[in-house]
């Protein structure tokens, strides 16, 4: 596997009569798990089509795994896997047959395709059901089968379109765990989703697009900043903390069931916990206020003109 960036977009613009779907997008994405979040739908679908070589950019230039999409779309596609959002598997064939066939369609010899299909179905948890027709599968099972056909050819990058769509919380957890593991298989992931929570759980890197323009691109860790405020939950008697803290020069505000205290160094942390112990209050929660991706997104989109 070559090192180097996974995906490079250079001034990528795509205009349709009437709308501009992408406007001057430039970003250099590393290997790993990348979340793609877009406001107003259009950008995500267009990006996938451009990556797969199904549409030509109006301006600009895309490189996937070092290959120029415009020059060698077939080469790019043989390194990609794709998991569409909607139902797309033939219902009257068994899971093993479908995944093996699509493995062959990716260029794998028949025997290797069958072997890998079996392995991959085991990996995604469908080993017991693999000789049953897909028509009999539940939503969660179908999503997993879709993922299986996307990775059967051992792609370098797999494109996931809303992988947790239609799944209940348990199913979502399972799917996100699978997606997380893809990284350890050496498969990079570009996951398009409108659920920032999923991105926060699974992705190392986030790209956010609003109205075709890049809003945010960075590692998840760097985006979730810690602020200097500490949130404390001591139950319903929270407001009792404010005055004693003020007496030791700690600014505190009681709000919505918790108390937010400004802490500038670790010694002040000790003072806070000692104060709580002294007042014999129960310490249910003590945490730095961490922003969520939702807040990051809102904040950044509001900044745009």
């Amino acid at each position: 596997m070559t090192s180097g960036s996974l995906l490079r977009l250079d001034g990528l613009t795509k205009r349709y009569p009437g709308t501009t779907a992408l406007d001057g997008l430039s970003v250099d994405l590393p290997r790993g798990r990348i979340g793609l979040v877009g406001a107003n739908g259009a950008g995500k679908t267009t990006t996938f089509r451009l990556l797969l070589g199904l549409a030509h950019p109006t301006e600009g230039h895309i490189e996937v795994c070092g290959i120029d999409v415009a020059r060698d779309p077939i080469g790019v596609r043989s390194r990609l896997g794709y998991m569409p959002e909607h139902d797309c598997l033939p219902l009257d064939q068994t899971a093993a047959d479908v995944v093996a066939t699509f493995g062959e369609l990716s260029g794998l010899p028949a025997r290797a395709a069958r072997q890998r299909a079996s392995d991959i179905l085991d990996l995604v948890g469908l080993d017991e059901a693999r000789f049953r027709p897909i028509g009999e599968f539940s939503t969660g099972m179908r999503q997993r089968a879709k993922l299986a056909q996307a990775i059967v050819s051992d792609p370098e990058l797999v494109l996931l379109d809303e992988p947790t769509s239609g799944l209940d919380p348990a199913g979502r957890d399972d799917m996100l765990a699978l997606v997380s593991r893809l990284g350890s298989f050496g498969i990079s992931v570009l996951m398009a989703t409108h659920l920032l929570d999923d991105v926060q759980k699974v992705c190392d890197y986030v790209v956010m697009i609003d109205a075709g323009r890049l809003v945010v691109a960075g590692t998840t860790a760097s985006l979730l900043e810690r602020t200097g405020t500490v949130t404390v939950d001591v139950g319903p008697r929270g407001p009792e903390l404010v005055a004693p803290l003020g007496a030791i020069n700690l600014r505190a505000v009681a709000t919505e069931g918790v108390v937010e205290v400004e802490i500038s160094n670790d010694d002040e942390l000790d003072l806070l916990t000692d104060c709580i112990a002294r007042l014999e209050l129960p310490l249910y929660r003590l945490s730095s206020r961490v922003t969520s991706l939702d807040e990051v997104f809102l904040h950044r989109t509001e900044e745009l003109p």
Partner: protein
Amino acid sequence: MTSAASVAPVPDDDPAFAEHATVLVENVSVWFRQKVALSELSCSFGPGVTGLLGPNGAGKTTLMRAITGLIDVNQGAVQIEGKDPRRDRQVFRRLALVPEDEAVPGGLTAREFVRYIAELHGIADRHAPDDALQSVEMLDVGDRNVDEFSKGMRQRTKVAAALVCDPHVLVLDEPLNGADPIQRLHLISLFQRLGADGRTVIVSSHILNEVERLAPRVIVLINGRLAAAGGHHAIRDAMDDRPRHVLVRSDAGRRLAAGLIALDSVGGVTFDSARDGLVIETLRARELATALPRLARDESIRLFEVRALDDSLESLFRELVR
């Protein structure tokens, strides 16, 4: 907006029943051939936002259809403001359902669709469709064809159509599905406003952290039966036979662990290297919370973080479904 009249006498300590209930579900069972979708379900909904949760196939959609009179109940009774939705057409003047599936007739613009629904309900106010579109922020695309919309936009159009008849009871099946983060936040505050107005808003969703934000009260269905009801913290407290897990990060983990083990309220302590701290298992959360800062002070241990790992609606749900 006046709140609707109360229905039957309410057992006031049962969280399955709301105060001033507008929608009453009494011992309802629904089955389709061999499959039992709802099984002797009794609960009620009142003004404000109530979340309806459950795994796929648990009966949420069936309950919503029964409440809105789309299907008949095989046993028991549903009442909306004292009336039977299957027999009393009056109910529909003040009741609206936004289903999950894409049931919008093609070829109409957003405004035309909302206006059509308004006419069906006999709404005379000519401004009502535009007001409804405005409240879901779709007024500027009101003249575009619904067929061109993304999933999130179609959902919002359906919500506008539901709002146009000024309903007292609003039932929404996965309304946040497909909406991008900004739209979701706006929809959430819209629903909160509607609930604060005194309307009965029933929302089903799989995105639990948003239901947490949106609904102070939830009803959880599993396998067609009522699994839990009430505020989610209260539900968690009610599960006192299941241990809570608290994460503590400090500067002296092992010393802290030694001190904790001596406490009665502590059931077990695990070293969690991934989270860089201790995970304490307890059946007596309050006792542990009170003892913790004292122990830290006495042993001169600095606490960096204390956090309940299963306090969210998601972990509650996982516990319930297990």
